């Protein structure tokens, strides 16, 4: 028999009293897990030094966040795992054998400018890892476009990325090495298999909303396909675009960043299509071979607008 005094021990809070098993922390660790195949592929194709780059990037991301929170005297939130994710993401989009000092600077920039300047997790407008990379692109333009030859390359002369090879020399890389990852490129961006493995995992556990990668892929096929149909000799085919450069990595891990992508379903479609359109424009008509980073950063800026324009119709509401 329990007595009325038991009431005092009961916890009070308002409904709902149950919660899904997801927390910010758990989500972040799942993303870390999903990035492991790409990290491993980077180590296989470019050597163990790449692990060092990623670790340095993680270390400086965490430390920067910790210091800024301390300076600002706000609650230290590094245990939410988001700094770790940014660290890995940044490491994986750097060229193999990149300088560790520059990596550290990029990591500091990612967190300090890309995230904490806006107020920390949830308040940033741009993807922090891409902000870090954009900074390094400006500060170290040569090192950022110097590509190491992958370990198992049959081609002993070139280490250029497929996109650069196509843009500057009209050399079309074969599909198979691009899918496996045995090509020049950023540490985690070359192996389509590894990226898809992690990407599908995140879609399966519903962390990544499939609409964004799917709309990007559709958009890419559509926009690059139109050009290709106009002149197949002048423009690369859609499959090449899908597997070359940072497209897949961007589609599954960068554009899908929760904080910097739209919250509405319709908004996600618009976001994905627009990113692909910008990528095709930059790759085809711009001075750079690659365009994923800029395309995502540009669209990040439009997210608040997209969210506002795609507000869903309230249930039962007549327009």
């Amino acid at each position, binding site marked *: *028999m*329990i*007595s*009325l005094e*038991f*009431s005092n*021990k*009961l*916890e*009070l*809070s*308002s*409904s*709902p*009293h*149950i*919660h*899904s*098993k*997801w*927390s*910010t922390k*758990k*989500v972040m660790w799942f993303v870390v897990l999903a990035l492991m195949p790409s990290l491993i592929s980077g180590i296989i194709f470019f050597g163990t030094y790449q692990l060092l780059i990623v670790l340095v990037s993680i270390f400086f991301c965490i430390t920067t966040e910790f210091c800024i929170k301390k300076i600002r005297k706000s609650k230290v*939130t590094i245990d*939410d795992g988001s700094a770790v994710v940014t660290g890995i993401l940044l490491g994986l989009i750097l060229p193999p054998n990149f300088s560790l000092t520059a990596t550290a600077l990029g990591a500091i920039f990612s967190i300090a400018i890309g995230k904490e300047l806006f107020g*920390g*997790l*949830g*308040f940033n407008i741009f993807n922090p890892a891409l902000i870090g990379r954009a900074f390094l692109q400006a500060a170290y333009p040569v090192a950022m476009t110097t590509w190491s030859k992958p370990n198992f390359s049959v081609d002993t002369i070139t280490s250029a990325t497929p996109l650069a090879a196509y843009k500057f020399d009209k050399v079309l890389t074969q599909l198979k090495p691009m899918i496996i990852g045995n090509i020049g490129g950023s540490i985690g961006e070359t192996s389509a298999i590894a990226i898809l493995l992690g990407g599908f995992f995140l879609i399966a556990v519903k962390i990544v*909303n499939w609409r964004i990668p799917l709309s990007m892929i559709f958009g890419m096929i559509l926009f690059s396909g139109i050009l290709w149909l106009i002149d197949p000799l002048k423009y690369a085919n859609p499959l090449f675009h899908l597997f070359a450069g940072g497209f897949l990595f961007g589609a599954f891990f960068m554009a899908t960043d*929760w*904080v*910097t*992508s*739209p*919250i*509405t*379903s319709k908004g*996600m479609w618009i976001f994905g299509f627009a990113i692909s359109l910008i990528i095709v424009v930059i790759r085809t008509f711009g001075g750079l071979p690659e365009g994923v980073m800029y395309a995502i950063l540009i669209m990040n800026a439009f997210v608040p607008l997209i969210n506002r324009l795609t*507000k*869903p*119709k*309230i*249930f*039962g*509401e*007549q327009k």
Partner: protein
Amino acid sequence: MLFFNQKKTFRGGIHPNTYKELTEDLSFEIMPPPKQVIIPLSQHTGKPAKPLINKGTKVKTGELIAEQDGYISANIHSSVTGKVIKISSAVNVNGFIKESIFIETDENEEFCKMPSLNIEAITAEEIKTRIKDAGIVGLGGAAFPAYVKLSPPDKKIDYVILNGCECEPYLTRDYRLMIERTDDIISGLKLIMKAVNASKGIIGIEDNKIEAINKLKKALSNYSDISIIPLKTKYPQGAEKMLIKAVINREVPPGKLPFDVGCIIHNIGTTISIYDAISKGEPQITAAITVSGKGINKPKNLIARVGTPLIDIINFCGGIKSNTKKIIVGGPMMGIAQYDLSAPVTKATSGILVLNDEEVTNFKETNCLRCGKCVEVCPLNLIPTRLARLTQFKKYEDAKNLGITVCMECGTCTYNCPANIPLVQWIRLGKQKAMSIIS
């Protein structure tokens, strides 16, 4: 057109663990009257009833002790035989202090019923009058007086929909009622259809309640005007607007009621009360309750007298385990945490849940990740994250323009938020403020 076996539903919603296995196979047990009952004068939406008795009055089980006051109000009958010891305020399960009648139970029970009516020959008016006399309130949560719902103003009603979803986790009383009182539910539905002159009846049931679906289907084989529609198991499938959308594909506009789209919705338990009141002359003096959760020693489906204190019910169910953390009246999604176990069950109480520390998950709240998970699941297509934020900034006008007053407080958004932001709590607050803005 509607077909059998088609899995219909609405957009959004969540799939929490149901925990129905704790009680779904347990037949109803009847709990003996407690030593004392506390019967609140207000167990319904609207004005409290007016007491007809005084301290010291001897009352019989089923005797009218408080009378409906105004149009939206309901009669209240004594749930036990005994002596009125006082009329004073007492805590109720909604956390409010309400005027209540305290009755000390006598050992020898005497009943006081209304005359039974012939369910074949009865007229629509007689049905409504009896429902009103028996003090029947809707058992779906809001406890709206049932006869009011049956008197829609000049609207053609073509469907009467019975809500057999019971989408809240843990609760199994409607499921058990559908199995144990199948025929009475159908008779009750027929009576409601007659009362509002509707030609079609529909019973919407979530597809995880297979036994109930089968039993009802069998019992319905010679009724052509009533159909069963199995629905996807999903929370909040039992919310009126969601159910109507799923079964007849009509959307109730914001601020409107089911009859505005030509239908009337009743709960399973209400339908049985209506049947009992008409065919047996019984007023609504008992509540069918699921007592469940991993913290209770003997989970049960129970028929208890209205006014029985929670503590008596808990002790009747073998008491609680030591790791109990929360006691809730209602379901875990919309129910109310209790702080005083002397509060009594009322006509509309659906469940008592004793949850332990493993069932009540408390994560740390973090910043909004703008993941859109709350937007994805909101059945009413609201933007919970923005509504909560606007409330925090006291921008009630903006929140109102974004539909905050439409929110049905189902808690789906909060359940799904990985940042563990108490969205519905903020929205509830903002909703109250927004409603007070004169527009």
